[in-house]
């Protein structure tokens, strides 16, 4: 019960501390909003913001080249801007308005006409071995987006092949007959089209970026709380009230629990607020089984507050909180993937990230939010690891506190 009196007092002090309220509740929302704005997804569901923007120049201007452009325009992940000339295409690429420039050369139709179905089947050898250039199609991308440019080139080349394949197929009697049969089947609504339609963007994916932005920032800000918590211990020491707490007829455990509970509750409230705002403001999905978010949030907050407890028993001054606390928060956040999607981490970094509670928290959020089916045991394993971290930090913090007091 005495722990609750201390907790209640600290909650009251937290409410009165405007700086803490801003740091713990307003700042995370502000950050998420800013990141949302930079990705063009704040308070908007414009699908175009999520599509890769490319510019296309058609110097061939035949039915086939137009069919290729139409196909690219129908692709759900691409936003195509048709440019009248290569120069203008290069200009928009240079300005960063598009990620890639596709140039369909004047010989595109002619070279497509020369292809046979065997050239397409055996594309690593023969006329197509030179890639898009063999069809007089070329790509240019910004130097800063080299990896992305190559990826896009691969995707676009596959679309080119899909457009020219029927041309080549008509020259072979077997495939021509097969194509005729397919044409007859067109009346059948269940028949699959010869060339499948390109994928289109689903309504849900408009909030996809938030699926890593919100958990990333939630985890980072949950752990940001450790510096506020450490400051609370320091001000208790500086105010001389820690001495009074130690003089009171209560145990060390009550003092530590009482000092930790308010921050745990604040952390849970902070996480819930971010997820609710993620849902309401940014249309973020809570995954197929949102109830799993509860244990993940609780365990993340537990790990964060216990790390705060340990830090509070290590630092002595406000300056130490600023230097050690902030360094710890940023390093752990960076290592774990709070700033950058973990899927893009190299394998070694993924393994290193699991030495931080942040890594396990992000893994758990990923399991709940981004999978089509929540793997309960996997999420609960992450929660168990977070509780393990919490127990370790609490034990060390308790031991430090006892030896200091």
């Amino acid at each position: 019960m005495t722990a609750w009196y201390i907790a209640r007092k600290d909650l009251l002090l937290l409410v009165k501390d405007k700086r803490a309220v801003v740091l713990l509740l307003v700042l995370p929302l502000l950050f998420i909003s800013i990141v949302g704005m930079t990705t063009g997804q704040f308070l908007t569901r414009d699908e175009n913001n999520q599509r890769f923007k490319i510019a296309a120049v058609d110097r061939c201007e035949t039915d086939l080249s137009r069919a290729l452009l139409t196909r690219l325009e129908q692709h759900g992940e691409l936003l195509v801007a048709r440019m009248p000339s290569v120069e203008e295409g290069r200009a928009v690429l240079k300005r960063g308005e598009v990620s890639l420039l596709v140039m369909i050369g004047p010989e595109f139709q002619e070279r497509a006409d020369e292809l046979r179905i065997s050239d397409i089947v055996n594309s690593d050898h023969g006329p197509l071995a030179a890639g898009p250039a063999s069809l007089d199609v070329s790509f240019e991308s910004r130097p800063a987006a080299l990896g992305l440019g190559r990826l896009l080139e691969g995707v676009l080349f596959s679309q080119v092949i899909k457009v020219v394949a029927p041309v080549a197929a008509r020259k072979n009697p077997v495939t021509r007959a097969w194509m005729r049969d397919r044409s007859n089947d067109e009346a059948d609504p269940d028949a699959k089209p010869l060339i499948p339609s390109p994928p289109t963007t689903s309504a849900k994916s408009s909030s996809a970026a938030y699926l890593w932005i919100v958990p990333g920032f939630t985890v980072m800000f949950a752990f940001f709380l450790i510096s506020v918590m450490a400051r609370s211990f320091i001000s208790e020491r500086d105010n001389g009230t820690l001495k009074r707490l130690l003089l009171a007829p209560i145990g060390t455990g009550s003092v530590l629990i009482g000092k930790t509970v308010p921050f745990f509750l604040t952390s849970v409230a902070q996480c819930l607020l971010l997820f609710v705002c993620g849902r309401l403001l940014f249309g973020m999905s809570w995954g197929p089984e949102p109830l799993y978010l509860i244990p993940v949030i609780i365990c993340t907050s537990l790990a964060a507050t216990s790390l705060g407890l340990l830090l509070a028993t290590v630092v002595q001054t406000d300056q130490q909180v600023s230097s050690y606390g902030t360094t710890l928060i940023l390093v752990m956040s960076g290592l774990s993937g709070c700033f950058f999607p973990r899927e893009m981490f190299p394998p070694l970094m993924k393994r290193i990230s699991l030495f931080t509670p942040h890594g396990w928290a992000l893994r758990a959020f990923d399991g709940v939010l981004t999978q089509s089916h929540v793997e309960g045991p996997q999420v609960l394993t992450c929660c168990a690891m977070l509780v393990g971290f919490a127990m370790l930090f609490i034990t060390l913090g308790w031991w430090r506190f006892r030896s200091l007091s």
Partner: protein
Amino acid sequence: MSLLEARRLKKSYGSHVAVSDVSFSLLAGEVLGLLGPNGAGKSTTMMMLAGLLAPDAGEVILGGLPFDGRNRDGRRRLGVVPQDFAIYPDLNAIENLQFFGRLYGLHGRELTARCDEVLERIGLVESAKRASGGYSGGMKRRLNFGVALMHRPSVLILDEPTVGVDPQSRSHLLDCVRDQARNGVGVIYASHYMEEVQSICQRVAIVDHGRVLACDSISNLLKGLAADLILYVDDVERAAAAVAGLARVGTGSDGLPALILTSGDSSNSDAANERTDIGERLRTILDRIHATGAKVLRVETQQTNLERLFLDLTGNRLRD
């Protein structure tokens, strides 16, 4: 039976011995002054008494039982007023008092009533709902004191409770201390203000270099204090040569060189004999000064007080 007793307390920090042998006792209703220069071992002693620090040797007896700080019943009997403010500046006086009251087991109406009572006693009723961070130094001191009273302790340990306050607040705080003593509370009162200690303490323990140099009632301590006669002479050097062995050259109250005749310099321990002795010595001195042709300008007596006793026992050397 004494409320609190320090028995041969010892405490070292590494090779530095902070407290080497401190013993005293505190009775119910008594205010015991604890005096000592900075670094004398007062704070370490008080921390051991409060249970915040474990002694290396010796023990603290509280209410007849050994007390080591882990004993929660013992902690309930103690009220400690630290030298530095120990209050939450963002909370008001009521919130501060009630919070600490709850930690000592007060609840509901009892807590509210006691809080009102303490607020009244420390004179903070009108400012009770203002954040204590905005209080004046005197108000903070009073609140600091009030927090220790909330749970009605039987022993109060006060560490310089009046530092930096105005005379009104000081007088109020001293009245509060007297009140507590009248109600049977034993008070240990550490201070550098000798006049305060002299006015409220029945007994004084003077501590230096980790030891109790003297511990007795103030009247007994002052009784043994040597009285000085100060003779201002127009030619001190000539007069001093003439009275060598009977008086020494020193500094008078106005900072001028003078001859000082100390009653304690006599080998007589009997008070009546000592008075005769100093009278004879004074007559001899005056005769010899007269013989040199020097003139006695003025004669003063130096008043005996606690400060003089303190300086006599602990010396004039700076400690900081």
